[in-house]
């Protein structure tokens, strides 16, 4: 005789486990909330509310005066130019480092050659350099370079070049190792030089992947160069920073709209170029 459904108490079979996890979560979360000064009530502080509502109130209508649009257009072109120049320099930096890092062009790896130790030491050094270049966020580089080169796009271009050089170098070496490395190896074994082995053995197989990753990074650089303006490195970000400091909501909303359009445009260009390369 099975009991009728009404007699079985509805009970969550997993209840103790769930309760334990909930308890652990609360115990871990509480100090984190304290450290992060998580006080939602601040949002409804009368003074903050007034600043924010005044500011947001100006968002509509966006500032579409010819003068400001001209300024914004110039900043947009500057942003695109920064991203392009920065990515080009990053490529120049990354190509030799990526080549040096890649194991598929190592001659000493083929046989127990004499230069193995030196080669590995150089590779470790190159890897460390790339780690430092890409490990420090681009906006930190920009902040430092603004101090060295003054306000303006030069610092932004170099910051992109340094950070993205580090990223591209690592990915280039990985791409060169992950593809078909047998042609290069055959060339090396039959006595060709490293560069020739690269151009005739590795590049034909991996050129498309290398190029498409670089274009993808350009797209990221467009986004990054907008952000870097906040520390004074030129472009749309610098304009937005100025408008925000003056609490000019109309200008900020115009720049936000332009920024969104710019990201869409970069996205479209990047995927079109990548499709062409494919």
């Amino acid at each position, binding site marked *: 005789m099975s009991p009728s459904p009404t007699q079985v108490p509805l009970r969550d079979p997993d209840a103790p486990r769930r309760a334990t996890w909930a308890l652990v979560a609360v115990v871990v*979360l509480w*100090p*984190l*909330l304290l*450290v*992060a*000064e*998580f*006080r939602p009530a*601040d*949002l409804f*502080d009368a003074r*903050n509310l007034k*600043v*924010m509502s005044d*500011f947001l109130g100006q968002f509509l209508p966006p500032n579409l005066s010819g003068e400001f649009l001209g300024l914004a257009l110039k900043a947009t*072109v*500057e942003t*695109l*130019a*920064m991203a*392009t*120049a920065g990515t*080009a320099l990053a490529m120049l930096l990354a190509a030799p480092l990526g080549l040096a890092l890649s194991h598929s062009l190592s001659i000493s790896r083929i046989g127990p050659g004499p230069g193995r130790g030196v080669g590995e030491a150089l590779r470790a050094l190159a890897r460390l350099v790339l*780690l*430092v270049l890409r*490990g*420090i*966020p681009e*906006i*930190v580089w920009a*902040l*430092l370079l603004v*101090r*060295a080169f003054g306000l303006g*796009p*030069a610092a932004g*271009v170099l910051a992109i070049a340094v950070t993205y050089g580090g990223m591209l170098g690592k990915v280039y070496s990985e791409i060169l190792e992950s593809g078909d490395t047998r042609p290069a190896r055959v060339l090396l074994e039959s006595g060709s030089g490293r560069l020739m082995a690269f151009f005739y053995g590795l590049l034909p197989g991996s050129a498309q992947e290398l190029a498409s990753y670089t274009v993808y990074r350009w797209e990221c650089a467009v*986004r990054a160069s*907008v*952000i870097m303006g*906040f*520390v004074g490195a030129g472009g749309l970000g610098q304009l*937005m*920073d100025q408008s*925000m400091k003056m*609490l000019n909501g109309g200008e900020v909303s115009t720049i*936000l709209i332009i*920024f*969104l359009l710019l*990201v869409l445009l970069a996205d479209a260009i990047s995927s079109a*170029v990548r499709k*062409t*390369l494919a």
Partner: protein
Amino acid sequence: MSSATLSERRAALGFCVYCWGTIAGLIAVVWASFAYLSLDFSRLFTLESGHYMFEFVARFFPPDLSAGFLQRIAKGTLETLAISAVGTLVAALAGLVLALPASGRLGPGLKALTRVFLNALRSVPELVWAALMVLAAGLGPFAGTLALALHTSGVLGRLFAESLENAPPEPARSLLDSGAAPSLAFVYATLPLITPQLIAYSLYRWEMNIRMATVLGFVGAGGLGQMLYYELSLLHEPQACTVIAAMLALVVVVDAVSAWVRRCQMRVGG
């Protein structure tokens, strides 16, 4: 010789007008960019500027490693981690709530509306949100937390909605057919199926947010970034050097841990 063989020979030689056109175009664009910004980096390689750069870099060394300052660094690092963790958690909860309408469970009208909302949240970068939140909540880590939460809600909401759409409907169907309430069917049949995926997405975003949280302080939103900005504006280069080293260490450790976790997952999964 017919044209067909000519084009065949061209193909064999790998000659493609379109590709070379693209490459030439790219070179022209790069050249135009340098020209527009009137960048002249040749000055960078003169002896004088080399000397200047060396002096600039030398001011950062040796880094300040005094116990008092290291303690402040530890506090800043903890604050950065807390900002990223709380921000990601709030975003995961908000993302889940927004994912319900965005997955089309509450009708097509709400679906389209929520998607637009999620896109708007997502397409404003974290740093811009942070600058806005500093106005709304005052200086400090809370502004950074809110900024990360807003941007990440947009990202996670969309990812969660896709998970919900792709979840197999049969378990929920069978609970509903046997008389369970829709909310219970969701909690006991749909949610457990996608939980691992939701956690994986959230952890991945947390990793990115730790990196982001180190720099949000530049606009006054707390953590290591605020320390760096502060020390640099007081021209305390040795202290700034320590902060940068801490940022680098944080990024490297997070990278290593996430690579390790992923390796473990791969070993378990296959």
